[in-house]
């Protein structure tokens, strides 16, 4: 608890640098990442982060020192070239984007490896620690680095803010943006440059491989909580910042622990939680809705069964026993799920039971009638308007009967001229 307090008050200047640096890096990367994700280019971050290696090496070879400004510019140039190469290959050959990304990534990194061996043999004393740029040493951030990162992060934030509307439009509806006269190609180039900038700044903190995660993981998580792009971008920034903070804290509390990987693990944990539990879009809520719908369908099918049994002798409210209700028939439902459905119907007071037998209540009868009615109306509609043979319409009606709203019901009736008989010449009941 004390470490947490120490950490949060930022009393130690080293901690201050690391924390601020991490938060800036991860939140600006997450913001750019949101647009990359929406443009379905999630993996280009991976390509860029590998492609910066030759740039870093070249900058080192030219300047002979580890000046961070030179390094970042070198990295920026080759990262940018890699993205151009990917676009060029996909536009001018039948090689698909995924293969182009993989190819460019490995070849650029290969070039970097060759240059790296050259540097190692050159015996320049300053070369040690060059690989920090590759594998990330967030904990070694110092004051001047922080200054550069803050400037870059602010640049990213401002540029994305200025072009927010254009980026949104290009991400969602490219042809429309083109038709409106937006300079789509230039906007692409701008987003590309921002991506490279984000990668180049972030790579020092988390390393080559994990940079892709800093870009897209927070954005992918944010996508699950909202359909509003503004909210999505802010959420992504928030998740990114939190991951940065948590990563810094973990390596502060346990110094053996690396900051970058923990940042990625934290933001992955947020993402996994979102995939599973985000309302409406998550896996669990989706399964719950599905389950609920299945229960409703089972209940309605059971009600329908009562109606069909009643239709034989026009005695709709008669008592029915289990054999009649659960006989294998067109419902094709297992008897255990039908029994469960029957129990739920009893608690909803749509059927009543005397222990052995069940019968419909008045409300139950009304509901049953409506479902049968919708079924038959739909069958008639399909034969009349879609020219489908009468013996082919049943299955379709079987699914749609659970969905049709009262408005649609009225519209169907109106279109069909308030019919009495369905295509099988059975009566369409009225309530």
């Amino acid at each position, binding site marked *: 608890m004390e470490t947490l307090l120490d950490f949060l008050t930022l009393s130690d200047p080293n901690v201050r640098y690391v924390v601020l640096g991490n938060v800036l890096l991860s939140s600006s990367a997450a913001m750019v990442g949101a647009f990359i994700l929406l443009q379905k280019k999630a993996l280009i971050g991976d390509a860029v982060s590998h492609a910066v290696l030759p740039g870093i090496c070249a900058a080192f070879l030219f300047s002979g020192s580890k000046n961070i400004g030179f390094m970042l510019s070198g990295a920026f140039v080759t990262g940018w070239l890699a993205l151009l190469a990917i676009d060029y290959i996909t536009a001018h050959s039948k090689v698909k984007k995924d293969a182009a990304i993989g190819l460019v990534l490995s*070849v650029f990194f290969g070039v970097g*490896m060759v240059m790296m061996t050259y540097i190692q*043999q050159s015996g320049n004393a300053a070369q040690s620690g060059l690989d920090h740029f590759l594998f990330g040493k967030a904990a070694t951030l110092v004051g001047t680095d922080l200054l550069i990162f803050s400037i870059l992060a602010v640049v990213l934030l401002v540029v994305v803010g200025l072009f927010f509307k254009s980026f949104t439009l290009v991400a969602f509806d490219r042809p429309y943006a083109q038709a409106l006269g937006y300079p789509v190609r230039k906007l692409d180039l701008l987003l590309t440059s921002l991506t490279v900038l984000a990668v180049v700044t972030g790579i020092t903190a988390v390393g080559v491989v994990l940079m892709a995660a800093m870009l*897209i*993981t927070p954005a992918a998580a944010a996508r699950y909580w909202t359909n509003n792009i503004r909210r999505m971008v802010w959420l992504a920034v928030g998740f990114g910042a939190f991951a940065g903070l948590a990563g810094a804290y973990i390596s502060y509390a346990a110094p053996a622990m*690396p900051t970058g990987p923990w940042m990625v*693990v934290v933001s992955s944990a947020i993402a996994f939680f979102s995939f599973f539990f985000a309302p409406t879009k998550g896996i669990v809520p989706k399964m719950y809705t599905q389950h609920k719908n299945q229960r409703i369908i089972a209940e309605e099918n059971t009600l329908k069964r009562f109606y069909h049994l009643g239709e034989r002798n026009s005695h709709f409210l008669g008592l029915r026993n289990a054999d009649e209700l659960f006989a294998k028939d067109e419902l094709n439902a297992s008897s255990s799920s039908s029994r469960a459905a029957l129990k739920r119907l009893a608690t909803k007071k749509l059927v009543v039971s005397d222990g052995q037998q069940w019968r419909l209540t008045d409300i139950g009868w009304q509901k049953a009638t409506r479902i049968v009615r919708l079924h038959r109306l739909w069958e008639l509609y399909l034969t009349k308007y879609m020219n489908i043979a009468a013996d082919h319409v049943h299955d379709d009606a079987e699914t749609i009967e659970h969905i049709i709203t009262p408005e649609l019901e009225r519209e169907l009736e109106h279109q069909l001229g308030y019919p009495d008989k369905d295509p099988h010449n059975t009566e369409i009941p009225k309530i």
Partner: protein
Amino acid sequence: MIAFWIILTGSLVAITCGLLGCFLILRKMSMVGDAISHAVLPGIVIAFLLSGSRDTLPMILGAGATGLLTTFLTEYFHRRAGLQTDAAIGVVFTFLFAVGIILISAFAGQVDIDQDCVLYGEIAYVPIDLWVTANGTIMGPRPVYILSVVLILVVAFICVGYKELKLTSFDPAFASVLGISTALWHYLLTAAVSITTVSSFESVGAILVIAFLIGPPATAYLLTHNLKRMLAITAALGVFIAFAGYWMAYWLNASIAGCMAVVTGLCFLGVFSMQRIRSSRIQPPIADPAAG
């Protein structure tokens, strides 16, 4: 002799990866190869911690397991949560790689695996890594044997499942009508990729594995429309790259894996620019029936 062993190792990896890579790029799954080659890290570390050695079998099992986990999670998030495939791949493999690095840091004293060894590998050490039998006979470099076994397995896998792999790659709907399980072959292919990746990573590193998985097949893909020919060109290119890459490295005195990756890129660049020049001469460019 050293040159021979290194080129042989390189060729074995190149052929094995290339053959599988052909199917990956046809299925637009190239980045799955990238993801698996990184995501095997935690599997290797866990296998190392459990077995306490760098023996090949536990490593392959561990890596194979995490490779399959990567594919499974990617598919699961894609199918069940509706996450776009590229994002699913990106989220899953970076997570696993991060876990791997954390494990390495946590057990720093017990694990002599480094993340740069996963990325770079060191093919130059192959000739030193000798297999010595119990009675002291030197049988040659150990990786060569392992990689040969993997190559034979992969070739057998492709021969046995050629029809299924081809059908599920080109027309999954038709394949399932014929009763071929698309999911089963998807997982078999990714399992093969995982095993290949891990058996190669020690000698050539993840980056060269990706280069070999994607580079030669992509080049062959530009040259032919016939799958069998594509496989053959890929294998031939693989051997050429291993050969040329080694001599380039020897001549420049640079990283062998890096040079092989560079040669891979040069091969693709050569074929690509040749086609560009040809298509710019013929006006208008002839539409490619297989493209799209």
